[in-house]
């Protein structure tokens, strides 16, 4: 039974549990001494009032009262000389556009109020993202209102006009052209038709120019491997919804790899338990770091960094043999247990045609092996599409490495960097810094100053995605459009417009994109669609589907794939480094975004920085504990000194560094959070948030190596505490009030597919009992009765909902010091629980549980509020009335779910520009007020008011909470439980997996969960545990 599972959140807790003792007060090793709240002792004194004192006090009161008697200053309303069409004060307008957070090209619908974007939502009809948005996509909104954005061009460190810039650049480029000097244009992935056309025109105008494209999180090896095997340099598009068995090898496809939202959609589609028989794909993850994807796998097998190649070779050899294809050599021993390997191979082979291997290792030979394995499994043409591939990573590591060599050789005369920061995020970035000053013409297009622009002479501002015209073709066959949602701040200009201005006649951004639409996109529209489609409908929808020319497929080159010889594992038993991206930071391009900096990592729960992640065994070997500073030294003496953080589930030789941190300019967050006497800066002035792992990246064998490099790890002395969320907000009962044996209450119900198929109620520890009720049924819900259900089988913990909630509900950023003090204000948090895997020391299983106000029917918070500031609404939700709250915090103490948040301060709202991000429909809370999830009451009101205005009843799915809207996995279902036909009512009534957390308390939460079901084969190891 699942109540035998010991679930824990921190290692300290686990150790206590293993000793069989109940957890009373969790030891929070990482909490600095100063962070403990120390209440100054107040002896009270004698409240004696002298006559003089009384008069003084009453006089003061009188004066104060009189001073407050004046009328508030008049409020002015300027309706505008000419109201733009469709813009009505107080009414939101929605525009379809494309996300600029990464190159995945997810479709967005952005809510604008009074001429400015205030909330990012997913476009449900978009072929790539289908309504999901990730945490980064949500947070790009704040990037628009960043006061550190570059607003005007800068030449030689001084502000300049565009006219001066254009003249200078044209003259410079003309001179370079005349002398025949090499021009290099360096960008990230470019897949937009209009930008590609502009680049092509520029290259044609300057014959010595070359386009160098690289990705900081590179998938170059996948493209190169497919050039070997398929003759085309592409990254195949993945349709995970068609997969029955998924093997992820070092590929965090649900979190950070290529197109996480798209993959999450597909992965989720393979996990629909409602049908008969229930559909649940089998997902095995083999990886060194514990990634988000690994944490969601049905089975996770850990290996040490650097041995992925050996695994891939063995896998390819075994599958190729089974399929009767020539097999690659396997010089290295199998890096995982043979039983686990056999089981994975057996699953893949048994479901061939419906199984796939996804590999994130950036090594051409490894990827060739994987291609061979996928060919043997018959994944091409079904799950993997090479004919209409992904264009979300088109960078070429080899091209970039050649560019760095050229720079060092001094053969480049002009260089233009656009929208990329290779000095900080590319392998060889340090070499760039040294070589760049020797280039005569150095131009950069950037949204803000960064490490790369520091070495350039001309720096021009790029527009934010929400103020630009643009197009993208993230996957072949889908053209996605970007339209401006706000008048640009400053004078930004896109790469496209710059290239056109520097190589030909200048055109407006809109004209450029429209010209491409007419010339390149319209002719590609499928027959019949061209007449129905216009520029306006394309903009309204945000995308168009276009025909993909089906070239005759070249046969799979088996010989080339079988000749692959993956890199041999690093010798000896020294430390091996794995550099991995995190869900919030990706490659670090959003390092200046405080929402993302404060977003707890889904696995480590770390905020504001990165750490050296080590396994428990490794930590013992090094004699370090959480927060002890550790120095990692790589080849060529590159080092990073960071606090250690013990991460369960890692290999014992593996050291993990998270990429994207240590960015220049992040010391801007020194003053983030409340300014008070005990405040400590989030980052020291002149320092950076975290440390960069980029120096450890190397270019080897045709691609950038992220993992597998041998490193030296040693104690550096000193401590630096790691600010982690979820070492607090615990759902256990304090020892002194718990009934015997009732200290532990498992908030997560979990079972296996085998057990679930037999009994749909499997996983619930005991039938929910409803004893006599002391509470009168006094809460009537005459209209709607809002309820929510979260499917734990679907939830990946990607944290998109957390940032979505933050944006929707004006939740401030509190800073690192306040996180230490357990005062973060997230209304939505994701609780991450570990559980040991029996018989496999060091392996862990992970469950993610979104936790928000449960809107209890018998709400414990309501009964203890002395001022009735938290009360029950007639729609079943629990309301928090800020203007009534006096801040006793009784409610938070009485909340069993620990979801209430207290405003200890008036959080910094000093940045008037950043304040534009505030949602005008939600009160900005002041100091001394309690707050918590409101079920997005403003959105419910909006939906209800619209229905009322149009004179029709509210339809199911019309009122959606922010977390629900963004969820790429559709794990959150919300609706009116009084309507028996609503999706949520049917789930509650019919789905046997439905349960409520801490149901035994009889608080009757309105939020329910669906049991986590893992597809564990009945015969596999680890299945007995769940019986």
């Amino acid at each position: 039974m699942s109540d035998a599972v010991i679930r824990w959140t921190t290692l300290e807790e686990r150790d206590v549990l293993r000793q069989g003792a109940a957890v009373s007060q969790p030891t929070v090793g990482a909490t600095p001494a100063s962070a403990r709240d120390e209440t100054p002792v107040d002896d009270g004194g004698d409240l004696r009032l002298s006559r003089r004192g009384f008069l003084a006090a009453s006089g003061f009161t009188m004066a104060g009262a009189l001073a407050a008697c004046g009328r508030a200053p008049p409020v002015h309303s300027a309706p505008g000389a000419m109201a733009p069409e469709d813009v009505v004060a107080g009414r939101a307008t929605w525009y379809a556009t494309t996300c600029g957070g990464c190159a995945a090209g997810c479709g967005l619908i952005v809510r604008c109020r009074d001429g400015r974007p205030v909330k990012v939502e997913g476009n449900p009809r978009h072929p790539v993202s289908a309504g999901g948005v990730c945490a980064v996509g949500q947070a790009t909104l704040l990037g628009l209102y960043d006061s550190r954005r570059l607003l005007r061009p800068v030449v030689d460190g001084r502000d300049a006009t565009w006219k001066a810039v254009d003249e200078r650049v044209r003259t410079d480029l003309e001179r370079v052209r005349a002398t025949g000097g090499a021009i290099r244009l360096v960008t990230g992935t470019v897949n937009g038709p209009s930008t590609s056309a502009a680049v092509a025109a520029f290259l044609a105008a300057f014959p010595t120019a070359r386009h160098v494209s690289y990705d900081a999180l590179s998938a170059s090896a996948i493209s190169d491997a497919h050039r070997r095997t398929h003759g085309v340099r592409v990254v195949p598009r993945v349709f995970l919804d068609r997969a029955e068995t998924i093997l992820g090898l070092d590929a965090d496809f649900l979190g950070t790899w290529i197109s996480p939202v798209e993959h999450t959609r597909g992965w989720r589609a393979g996990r629909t338990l409602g049908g008969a028989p229930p559909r649940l794909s089998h997902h095995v993850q083999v990886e060194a770091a514990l990634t988000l994807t690994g944490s969601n796998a049905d089975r996770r097998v850990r290996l040490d960094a650097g041995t992925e190649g050996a695994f891939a070779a063995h896998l390819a050899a075994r599958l190729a043999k089974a399929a009767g294809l020539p097999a690659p050599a396997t010089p290295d021993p199998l890096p995982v247990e043979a039983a686990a390997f056999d089981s994975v191979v057996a699953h893949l082979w048994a479901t061939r045609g419906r199984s796939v291997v996804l590999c994130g290792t950036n090594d051409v030979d490894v990827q060739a092996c994987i291609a061979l394995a996928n060919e043997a499994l018959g994944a091409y043409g079904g799950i993997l599409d090479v004919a209409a591939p992904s264009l979300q990573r088109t960078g070429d590591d080899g091209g970039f490495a050649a560019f760095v060599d050229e720079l060092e050789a001094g053969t480049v005369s002009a260089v233009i960097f656009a929208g990329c920061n290779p000095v900080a995020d590319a392998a060889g970035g340090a070499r760039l810094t040294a070589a760049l000053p020797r280039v005569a013409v150095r131009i950069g297009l950037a949204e803000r100053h960064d490490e790369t622009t520091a070495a350039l002479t001309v720096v021009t501002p790029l527009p934010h995605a929400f103020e630009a015209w643009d197009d993208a073709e993230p996957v072949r066959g889908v053209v996605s459009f970007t339209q401006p949602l706000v008048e640009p701040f400053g004078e930004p200009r896109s790469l496209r417009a710059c290239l056109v201005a520097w190589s030909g006649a200048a055109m407006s951004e809109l004209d450029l994109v429209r010209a491409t639409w007419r010339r390149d996109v319209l002719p590609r529209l499928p027959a019949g669609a061209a007449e129905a489609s216009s520029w306006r409908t394309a903009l309204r929808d945000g995308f168009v589907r276009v025909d993909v020319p089906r070239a005759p497929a070249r046969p799979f080159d088996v010989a080339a794939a079988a000749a692959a010889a993956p890199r041999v594992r690093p010798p000896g038993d020294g430390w091996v480094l794995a550099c991995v991206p995190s869900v919030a930071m990706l490659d670090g391009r959003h390092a200046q975004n405080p929402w993302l900096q404060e977003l707890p990592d889904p696995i480590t729960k770390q905020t504001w920085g990165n750490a050296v992640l080590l396994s428990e065994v490794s930590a013992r070997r090094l004699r370090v504990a959480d927060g002890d500073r550790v120095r990692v030294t790589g080849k060529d003496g590159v080092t990073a000194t960071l606090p250690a953080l013990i991460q369960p589930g890692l290999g014992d030789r593996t050291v993990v560094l998270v990429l994207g941190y240590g960015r220049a300019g992040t010391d801007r967050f020194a003053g983030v959070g409340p300014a008070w006497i005990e405040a400590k800066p989030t980052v020291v002035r002149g320092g950076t948030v975290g440390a960069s792992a980029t120096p450890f990246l190397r270019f080897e064998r045709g691609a950038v190596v992220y993992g597998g490099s041998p490193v030296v790890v040693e104690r550096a002395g000193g401590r630096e505490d790691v600010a982690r969320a979820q070492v607090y907000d615990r759902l256990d009962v304090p020892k002194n009030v718990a009934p015997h044996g009732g200290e532990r209450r498992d908030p997560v119900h979990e079972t296996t597919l085998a057990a679930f198929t037999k009994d749909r109620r499997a996983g619930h520890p005991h039938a929910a009992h409803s004893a006599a009720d002391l509470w009168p049924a006094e809460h009537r819900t005459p209209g709607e009765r809002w309820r929510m259900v979260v499917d734990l089988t679907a939830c990946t913990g990607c944290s998109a909902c957390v940032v979505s909630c933050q944006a929707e509900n004006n939740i401030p950023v509190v800073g690192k010091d306040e996180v230490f003090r357990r005062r973060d204000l997230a209304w939505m948090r994701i609780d991450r629980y570990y559980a040991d895997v029996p018989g496999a020391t060091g392996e862990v299983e992970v469950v993610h549980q979104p936790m928000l106000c449960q809107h209890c029917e018998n709400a414990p918070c309501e009964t203890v509020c002395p001022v009735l500031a938290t009360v029950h609404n007639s729609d079943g939700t629990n309301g928090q009335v800020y203007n009534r709250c006096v801040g006793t915090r009784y409610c938070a103490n009485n909340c069993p779910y620990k979801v209430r948040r207290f405003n200890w301060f008036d959080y910094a709202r000093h940045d008037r520009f950043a304040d534009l991000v505030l949602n005008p429909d939600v009160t900005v809370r002041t100091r001394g007020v309690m707050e918590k999830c409101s079920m997005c009451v403003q959105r419910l009101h909006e939906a209800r008011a619209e229905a009322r205005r149009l004179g029709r009843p509210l339809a199911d799915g019309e009122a959606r909470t922010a977390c629900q809207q963004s969820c790429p996995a559709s794990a959150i279902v919300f609706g009116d439980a009084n309507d028996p036909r609503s999706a949520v009512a049917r789930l509650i009534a019919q789905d046997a997996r439905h349960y409520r957390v801490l149901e035994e308390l009889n608080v009757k939460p309105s939020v329910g969960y669906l049991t986590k079901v893992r597809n564990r084969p009945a015969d596999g190891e680890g299945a007995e545990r769940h019986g």
Partner: protein
Amino acid sequence: MRRRTLSIVAVVGALLGGAVVIQGADLPLPGNHIGYEPVQPIAFSHPLHAGQLEIPCLYCHSAAERSRHAGLPSDAVCMNCHRAVGATLSAVQEEAERAKAARRQPLPVVSSEIAKLYRAQGLDDTGQPVPGARVTPIRWVRVHNLPDFAYFDHRSHVAVGVACETCHGPVDTMARVRQHADLTMGWCVNCHRRANATGLPGGRPARASTDCSTCHY
């Protein structure tokens, strides 16, 4: 000790007494701006437009149907009529007669208040753009102000047929718009309770919520 008790009693008594006085005299509590009647940048006459000419409220305040805010008309809405109408009919007729007497073309007649509208639009008295003039929207003074923690939705009220004058009073008789009702929470809640008890205009049942979260979130 006795002195302390006395002073506490005195303070509490004074507060209670004050409350009784305020209650008895029906004085508005702090924050209740009933009767607020600020001077507007243009002496716009509701009696003329809404009363005499019977222009519906929603012609100018059209957002009330679609948005939480009723909205003020943009200057362009005024210009729908005032592009042609520059002064009262009598003033125009007088000028016409004067012109007739003096045997000349009548001059454009623009009242001093409408001239302000033209200036804001960057136009001269004949309605022609003044070269170099900037368009500066008129900054009206808001009469009905709710505190920031209260959200009111015009749209819902208009949709169920609550008449504008229920809350705003006889605006068509106000030379200068004045806050007619308390706009306090008690006043709102009373109306909601009344509506639930007696139904909406036309006898339909009301669903006027009295939850805190109806207005506070």
